[in-house]
């Protein structure tokens, strides 16, 4: 197991990157301007790519360098660029009618992080790895998941919902780099491309939303009930 034999410098580097990613997820949660989401997401993807490279360096997994480069290129550059194109076409700059205030969602997100910490500490204790980077990785993974779901529920703009899903995936990717760096390479590459296909499909659906429904706000999508 990689994380049981980490040097303190490596552990603190991983901790720093993980917490910075979590902070960026909160920036995405609390901002109202769609461009800010995208930039925060791009920065977060770059940070996770750096984490991949660091894990590859300290754990001697050379294939992770390739993953790091692919992550940086696809998740960090290509996805935000595609989404930025969609945003420009949308003519929507920010969330107009919020379901929950940005500040309240930040507080709820903080509680979600505390819950994730409790679960992760419990698991870490049963495994005997409590107090190491493992607990931090589990916490950040679970809390980014919860924050992603929170973004899906409190946001009603289509782009914000797509970004919420991408934050979910980012969280899983972050956790898997620290916890299971030895996962088969094929799997990681395929998941990465899968993400690209997902965003392309979302882009197409958003096109349909604009042209046939006339709005991308899910507050207006209320035709199907019962």
């Amino acid at each position, binding site marked *: *197991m*990689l994380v049981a034999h980490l040097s303190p410098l490596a552990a603190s580097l991983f901790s720093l990157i993980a917490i910075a990613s979590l902070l960026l997820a909160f920036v995405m949660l609390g901002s109202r301007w769609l461009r800010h989401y995208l930039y925060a997401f791009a920065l977060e993807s770059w940070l996770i790519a750096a984490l991949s490279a660091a894990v590859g360096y300290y754990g001697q997994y050379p294939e992770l360098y390739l993953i790091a480069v692919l992550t940086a290129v696809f998740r960090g550059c290509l996805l935000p660029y595609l989404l930025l194109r969609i945003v420009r076409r949308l003519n929507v700059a920010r969330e107009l009618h919020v379901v929950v205030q940005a500040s309240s969602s930040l507080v709820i997100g903080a509680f979600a992080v505390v819950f994730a910490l409790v*679960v992760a500490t*419990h*698991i870490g204790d*049963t*495994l005997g790895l409590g107090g190491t980077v493992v607990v931090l990785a589990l916490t950040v*993974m679970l809390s980014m*998941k919860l924050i*992603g*779901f929170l973004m*899906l529920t409190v946001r009603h703009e*289509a782009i914000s*919902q797509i970004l*919420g*899903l991408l934050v*979910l*995936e980012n969280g*899983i990717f972050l*956790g*898997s780099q620290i*916890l*299971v*760096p*030895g*996962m*088969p390479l094929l*799997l990681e590459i*395929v*998941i990465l491309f*899968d993400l690209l*296909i*997902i965003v392309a*499909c*979302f882009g*197409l*659906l958003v096109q*349909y*939303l604009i042209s*046939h*429904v*006339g709005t991308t706000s*899910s507050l207006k*999508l209320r*035709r*199907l009930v*019962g």
Partner: protein
Amino acid sequence: MVGALLLTIVLAPSAAIVLILLARRPRLAEGLNLAASVIAFLAALALPALSLTGAHVYWASYIILDPFGAWVILCSAIVYLLASIYAIGYMRLLEEEDSLPRFYALFAGFGLTTLVGPMMNSAGLYWIAIELTTLVSAFLVAFERAPESIEAAWKYIIVVSGGISLALLGTVLFYWAGSFVLGPHYDMTWAVLRGAAPQMNPAVLLLAFLLVLVGYGTKVGLAPMHTWLPDAHSEGPAPVSALLSGALLNTAMVGIVRYLAIIEAAHPGPLPRLVLVVLGAFSLFVAAMFIVRQRGIKRLMAYSSVEHMGIMALGFGFGGVLGVAGALYHMLNHTLNKSLMFFGAGSMMRSYQTKDIGAIRDVGRRFPVVGALWLAGAVAITGAPPFGLFASEFTILRAGLRGPQVWAAIVMALLLIVIFIAFLNHFREMYFTPTPAEAEPAPARPVGAWCAVPMWLALVPLLVFGLWWPEAIWQYFGAIAHGLTPSSGVIGTGL
């Protein structure tokens, strides 16, 4: 032999997709799709018998064919064939000849992805297959480009993608738990995970299983994660709805059952099965509530799908030979029956030009043959004898009364009665209430042969399987159930 058959199943729809996209002619597209579905069906028909000789692993252990997978592939192939026949008649009614090649390409792609899912040996690849089914079917649901369809597709893709990401988290946690036992690099196949399960940490296993259950449960349509199901199934064209209900939900169930077998190998106590049973019972309850007050004909069928997935979850949750056999037989019968119901609903929608139950009247008088078929299907789907669903539901009830969760069996029986009454009440409205004298009858377009034949093809086996449960199939189910219980310690006999 098995390898060749699997390759045929994969290549036939793929070739159809490529040729359809190259040729772009509607009649050719219809024919290619139909041919692909016939070839896939014939190949899948031979698979269950061949898989009994043991699990066949191919292509660097990424592809597996075991008895359970073979059965699910057969069910998917059946509905793919029936839906392809029906689609020819139905899509011609839409009178949009230019978009037909795109439809059939997507349709063949959808069929391909549902056929491929149960073949996946690696848990990660299985996840990717499920994700691909979501993407392809979302575009099929949005095919008609009406605002409701696009809203349904959007809701579908958001809810299901969110749910499946939970399943991905569960998969990663399973891999992590396994890495303590098997080292950092290993192939995450079902058999390997099952072998290592007894030594994995129980807390991590439980968390991972719950995540996978909720994640793939979203895709299966278990309440409370079912919210996308009524919209997606009701807004897509009828052949797509049949394929969604009949093939996709089964493919997602494969994941839940396989992960259940993995965690059962670690003897975790009653909690995993209990959660599955609770989800199944809650799905039945939600479906019953919404069926009582339903106004849309296809949404009614969609909630019926929720109900039957709940029953299947109950069957797998009760476990044992009876439970698993009942659930698997239910899978086949539900596939046939739901296809029949969606075909009838699609034809009625096209004829009466409405989705509202209140506006469809006098079906029995206007469509004698198709109407009779549809009514028989309605009686069947609510679980009445002598049709197949009665036999499977009865078996599941028996399994439940024997196991520890007797309350679930009682709840299931009660809710089935409620659903029987409510569902058939809607059909009574449609069939036996005459149109008011002052309203002129809506122009009823006749149902073509292309649409009627698959309904016959679905009903007859349903009746046969209800009256006669072949001994061979019982033994087949016994082999599957045996493979799913943790007492079989031999790795590699498959699930």
